[in-house]
């Protein structure tokens, strides 16, 4: 599904990301782990063509992302709050994204209703604009919005951060369901090794912009990772 070739990104001569070769196949759920500054968000930004690669390229379902925009049709992402439109209510935002992705109101309503438990009655119908929601609730809106329109590639940056324990468990359930769907390729990044290992079937660890580990999730994965990141 996604091929990364000789990809690098430098800022004023300092390489912050350097991935020689990485292939992600269709239906895979990939967890990207690493410390602050390891290059996780940089990689996702490159994948979404939000920054320009210094060298190399990424191919998303036969589309080279920095030359064509066709990938936008089947890719959805939530990176941070800058993906939310602050002056809309949650419902309006969902409809907006839905309309862009050619889904009518009923489709969006059905999807949102499916995840109503995830919102915990704190978001829908509260007469609040997104800018006035708490950080955690903003994140919930952004994550669900990324699921609108059955995207084939879903990218979530730090989905577990800022969420309460109950919501984290609910989110894990949602992500697990998605990862079982053979049509959905899922990419999530996280600092939390336990959560990532639990929901992903492949883990890639980044350090200073380089891939240092690439493992299929198994019973030993967590130990291996914890040993790797131990101080």
């Amino acid at each position, binding site marked *: 599904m996604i091929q990364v070739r000789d990809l690098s990104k430098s800022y004023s001569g300092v390489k912050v990301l350097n991935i020689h070769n990485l292939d992600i196949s269709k239906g895979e759920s990939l967890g990207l782990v690493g410390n602050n500054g390891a290059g996780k968000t940089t990689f996702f930004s490159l994948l*979404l*063509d*939000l*920054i*320009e690669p210094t060298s190399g390229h990424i191919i998303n379902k036969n589309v080279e992302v920095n030359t064509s*925009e066709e990938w*936008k*049709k089947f*890719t959805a*992402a939530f*990176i941070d709050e*800058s*993906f*939310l*439109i*602050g*002056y*809309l*209510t949650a*419902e*309006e935002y969902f409809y*907006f*994204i839905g*309309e*862009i*992705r050619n889904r009518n109101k009923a489709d969006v309503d059905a999807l949102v209703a499916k995840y109503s438990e995830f919102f915990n009655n704190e978001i829908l119908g*509260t*007469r*609040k*604009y997104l*800018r*006035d929601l708490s950080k955690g609730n903003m994140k919930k809106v952004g994550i669900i919005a990324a699921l609108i329109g059955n995207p084939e590639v879903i990218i979530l940056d730090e989905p577990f951060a800022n969420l309460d324990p109950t919501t984290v468990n609910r989110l894990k359930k949602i992500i697990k369901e998605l990862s079982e769907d053979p049509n959905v390729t899922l990419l999530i990044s996280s600092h939390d090794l336990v959560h990532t290992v639990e929901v992903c079937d492949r883990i890639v660890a980044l350090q200073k912009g380089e891939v240092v580990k690439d493992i299929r999730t198994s019973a030993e994965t967590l130990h291996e990772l914890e040993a790797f990141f131990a101080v």
Partner: protein
Amino acid sequence: MFRLFAGLEWKSFVRSKAFAANLVLKILMGLAAVYFSVCFLFLGVALYFGLEEAKLEPLETVNRYLLYFLFFDLTVRYFLQKMPVLNIKPMLPIPIPKKIIVHYALSKCVFSFFNLYQAFIFVPFTVVLLLKSDVPVVNVLLWHVAVFALVFSNNFINVLINSKDSVFYPVLAIVGLTAVSHYYGWFDATLYTQHFFNSLSDTYFMFLVPCLFFGLLYYASFNYFRKRLHLDTGLASKTDLATTENLTWLNQFGSMGTFLKNDIRLLRRNKRSRTTLFMSVAFIFYGLLFYTGSIEVYSSPGFQVFAGIFVSGGFLFTFGQFVPSWDSAYYQLMMSQNISYKQYLASKWWLMVIATCISTVIASFYIIFGWKIYLLIVFGAIYNIGVNSYLVLWAGAYVKTPIDLTSSKRAFGDKQAFNFKTLLISLPKLLVPVLLYTIGYFAYGSELGLLLLALAGIAGFLFRDKMFNVIEKVYRTEKYKTIEAYKEKA
């Protein structure tokens, strides 16, 4: 402690966004500051001599109208002066007594522009008063102290009543009524209040009253804030109650309707964009300066068409110049969604076209100044739609200033105005129509001038797709730079 606070203030001053602007802007801002201080200084001096020339006793006349001045000052403060409470949040968890934090915040607002501009009026007036009039020095100085106490009292009245509309508007209404009845000679309140203001300079003790008043107000404000120094009371930022607007009638525009809906919500729900709406209405009346013949230079053909462009193009200029910055807060979203630039630009373009048409209709009252005047406005609108709408979108591609939608500030003097490329593209917006019309006007008459304007507009309209393609290309090449720039918060 004081040294620490002073250090913080100094840093926040020199590191403020305004200073981060380029050198040209710094110099221009400096010049503007000098200009305004000189204006106010001059006002203070001229006030004395002007009143003297009008055979009025300067001090007494000032005393008489001081009431209105103070209320005017309060009104301006109510709408414009910001409360200095938000930036004291980081102080709360560190070991500084709350008492000191409150004193710090309150004394900080004393140094605001709204207190300083008074000094530029009253200090020169007092100096002239000392030099020229026969009022004893001590009395003048006591009066001066009293007036300053009153001005600073205003500062703290504003602190106390800020955002209490239920207090402010009734007071404003009463003062308004008093002023009206004064004007029509029914009842003159100043005749009564001037006794009080006169007593400030006539006696040696009355100046204590405003001083005491000021002290009381400071004490009250102090208590008010001291009690409300919590994140959920005094320091809470206001949240708006969301209104849901479905705007389903826009669905017929298809995917463009999606963006139009969003833009309408953007305009209605954010402070900054509401300022833009207000300004575009103000521009409709801008033409009055030109078409009433009150200023002679303005009746030349060049200026006439200049005004014509502005009357219908207020929204186009004020909104259009910040496309795509209006979407800066969520530009990354827009760039990763399945949106074509063409749709995005077309929706902004339609919004400007619709607003231009509405402005032109509203401006139909200009007919009372003659058909010719209104024709100028209509043809100005055609030029705006046909040519200027593309120019603002094109220039917008180079605008890299993120907009903070929730703050109404920075509506003027954004640093992007001095972006060279933007400036270059902006020139034809006004110069070309002025030139076209003037050439036609002097070659044949105003008919040819109007015809030239219309031809330019219609030509632009016909080449719509071509224009959009060009603009789209520019947006595409500027994409990464724009995303990068918008990441830095405004």
